[in-house]
């Protein structure tokens, strides 16, 4: 098992290097640092001196990949690629446009993101799996049919609508919870309820339908027929056999998401004014802060790869037949 994990981690390295090269190309080759300086300083009325100054302050005045003037190692290290991209591997993300340390900012914003994402995720999983199981239990009845119709309708509603509508109804009309904001400590729950509920509701349509398909696929298998044939009641068949066997396909989709929960949700967080990583990213996009966006892309891919590895490991825990030796 350990050997397998180590091997997977080693496999992840070339992929991360690829991500790094891709973002580097995207941010520095498509646009030169001159373009970025011009954007930041305002496209019109910008002097070449101001551009040079901007670049020098932020360390963009170095060569892109190879420094011809340097000696020894500094041929490669004293470059934009090394300073801005390669250093990300050791968690050094540099500074944002407003001068703040990105790594520290990420550290402090991770918790609010998790505070929203984790309850939404767990509650959402519970609700959708329960609904899907109910629909599968009453399969091929009018209940199932209308359930699926509702799911398709719910899927077709824009996520923006859930947020805007929910905020308007629950916070503005009924005044049940604050519209937006975030509090420290235990007081935070009042701010958390609405985004969590909206997050769960907006996911119901597509996930329920997806899990229902998985359950129905299990229902048609031979072992279920055997279980019924030996006289097990239908509820027992569902909870003991089908639910357990349907866990693998459900796990595939779910475990990958867990690390990404750190990233938060762009929409929810910026709507509810939660100081998490999602709103951080949105703010950075709006402020055209390239270093922050670059760092978030890198972290996102690291988390995704971690998720993939976790998925494979979780297989072995759920299904002892799967071995990776």
């Amino acid at each position, binding site marked *: 098992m350990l050997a397998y994990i180590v091997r997977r981690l080693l496999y992840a390295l*070339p*992929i991360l290097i*690829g*991500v790094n090269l*891709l*973002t580097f190309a*995207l*941010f520095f080759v*498509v*646009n030169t640092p001159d*373009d*970025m300086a*011009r*954007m930041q300083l305002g*496209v019109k009325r910008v002097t070449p001196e101001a551009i040079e100054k901007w670049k020098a302050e932020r360390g963009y005045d170095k060569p892109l990949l190879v420094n011809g003037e340097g000696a020894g190692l500094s041929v490669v290290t004293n470059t934009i690629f090394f300073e801005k991209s390669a250093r990300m591997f050791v968690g050094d993300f540099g500074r944002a446009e407003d001068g703040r340390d990105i790594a520290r900012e990420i550290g402090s914003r991770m918790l609010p993101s998790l505070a929203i994402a984790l309850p939404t995720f767990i509650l959402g999983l519970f609700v959708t799996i329960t609904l899907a199981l109910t629909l599968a239990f009453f399969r091929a009845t009018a209940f199932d049919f209308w359930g699926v119709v509702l799911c*398709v*309708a719910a*899927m*077709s*509603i*824009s*996520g*923006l*609508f859930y947020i*805007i509508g929910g905020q*308007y109804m629950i916070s*503005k009309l009924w005044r049940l919870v604050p519209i937006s904001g975030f509090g420290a400590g235990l007081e935070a729950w009042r701010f958390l309820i609405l985004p969590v509920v909206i997050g769960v509701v907006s996911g119901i349509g597509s996930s329920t339908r997806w899990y229902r*398909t998985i359950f*129905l*696929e299990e229902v048609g298998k031979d072992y279920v027929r055997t279980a019924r044939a030996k006289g097990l009641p239908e509820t027992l068949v569902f909870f003991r056999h089908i639910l357990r066997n349907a866990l693998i396909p459900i796990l595939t989709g779910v475990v990958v998401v867990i690390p*990404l929960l750190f*990233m938060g949700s*762009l*929409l929810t967080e*910026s709507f509810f004014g939660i100081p998490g990583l999602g709103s951080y*990213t*949105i703010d950075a*996009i*709006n402020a*055209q802060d*390239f270093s922050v*966006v*670059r760092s*978030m*892309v890198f972290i*996102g*891919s690291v988390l*995704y*790869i971690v998720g*993939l590895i976790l998925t494979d490991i979780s297989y072995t825990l759920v299904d002892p037949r799967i071995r990776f030796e």
Partner: protein
Amino acid sequence: MGFQIVVLWSDGLIWLLVAAAIGVAMLIAKSPPLLAAWRRVGASRVGMASATVLLAFILIGLLDSLHYRAQLESKPGKKAVYAVEVLSVLDALAAPLRSRNEKTYSAPFATRLYAKETIDVPGQGSVRDYPRLKHGGQHLGEREGEVAEDVGFTAFRACLLAFVGWLGVFGLVVAGTRRQGQVTLAGQTGFAWDAVLLTLLVIVLVSVPLFWLSGRYHVFGTDKVGQDVLYQILKSVRTGLIIGLVTTLVMLPMAVLLGIVAGYFRGWVDDLIQYIYTVLNSIPGVLLIAAAVLMMQVVIDTHPEWFSTAAERADLRLLALCFILGITSWTGLCRLLRGETLKLRELEYIQAAQAFGVSNWRIIIRHILPNLMHIVIIALVMDFSGLVLAEAVLSYVGIGVDPTMTSFGTMINSARLELGRDPVVWWSLAAAFSAMFILVLAANLFADAVRDAFDPRAA
């Protein structure tokens, strides 16, 4: 009055897509298994009803994809001068909607503005009151209180006309199917004519009165700058369709080619392609899109000399967005196709072909590609609705289409603060969400019908 035809890049692509669709339809007609699957789609009532709705949307989008610049009035004998503004056929048809702008917000079917203003009333001096709208309900004159009667009567007449028109279509269909010796409307024609006709009835019963009334009122109200919301909705349809359709056009060749090549040749080619899509896949989609759009925005902003009109700039940004969405979304289909190709290449008939010395590319085109078509079709239809929804979210976040371009996302974005107003302005949001809901729901239902027909195994 003359005009100059303008072909924007996205227009070109969308008409190319129409041509491609016709070409594919002709290919399908020659292939019995695909034809049989499409027949099953045709027999599905839900599928055909949603297809009818989709076609209505596509018609609006196509009308909006024929662009021109109107000729300005000039002295005879002089060289013709054309307007800077790029219009479309839809703009010409909806000219009253486009040009009859109010000052600011007005509610649906309102005759007065939504905000009080100081107005001069003869004999009374200056009064603060809601001023009459310049266009909405103008024909009523003094009988301002009779809006409900007027609307009801107009809508009733329009419905009658719509129904008569629909009866004509109905008669044509019945006559047409009779002649082929088939019984219609009983589900025995093999094509769900009843669903199509019923949907068509609903569409004309809604759209004809809407069209009629929109000439006299602002049916969905007006927005902050007094522009008719119905007009914005119509314009948003094209943006949504382009994002949904052109993106699939972009990703399709890449996904199909790389997927098949990886599965068929295996070895280092497979490793390389797998590496590429794992790298792309491991970056969260929204972030990759955000980064790419950000970069593209810098390119556009630093090279203003590339674009002669604002429409061209917005158009290029739209296309760039399609490309970026395409690049981030080809990986899933590619992986599916690779897996299926790996399976197919081990089958006997492919090995027989190889033993006969048929070239690899010929095997791919003749034997593998046709056997993958069902996966491709399912994936394409399934992706569409997600892309329309994604466009709205991206535009809302500020990394979608150009802010000057009308789309569901930009509409929602400009309308979101209106819910905080008192009294609340709800109509633009409601209209944008409803239109998007109908489009996406139809797409989802159609996708389901297609998937059921092509992949009977999946529940």
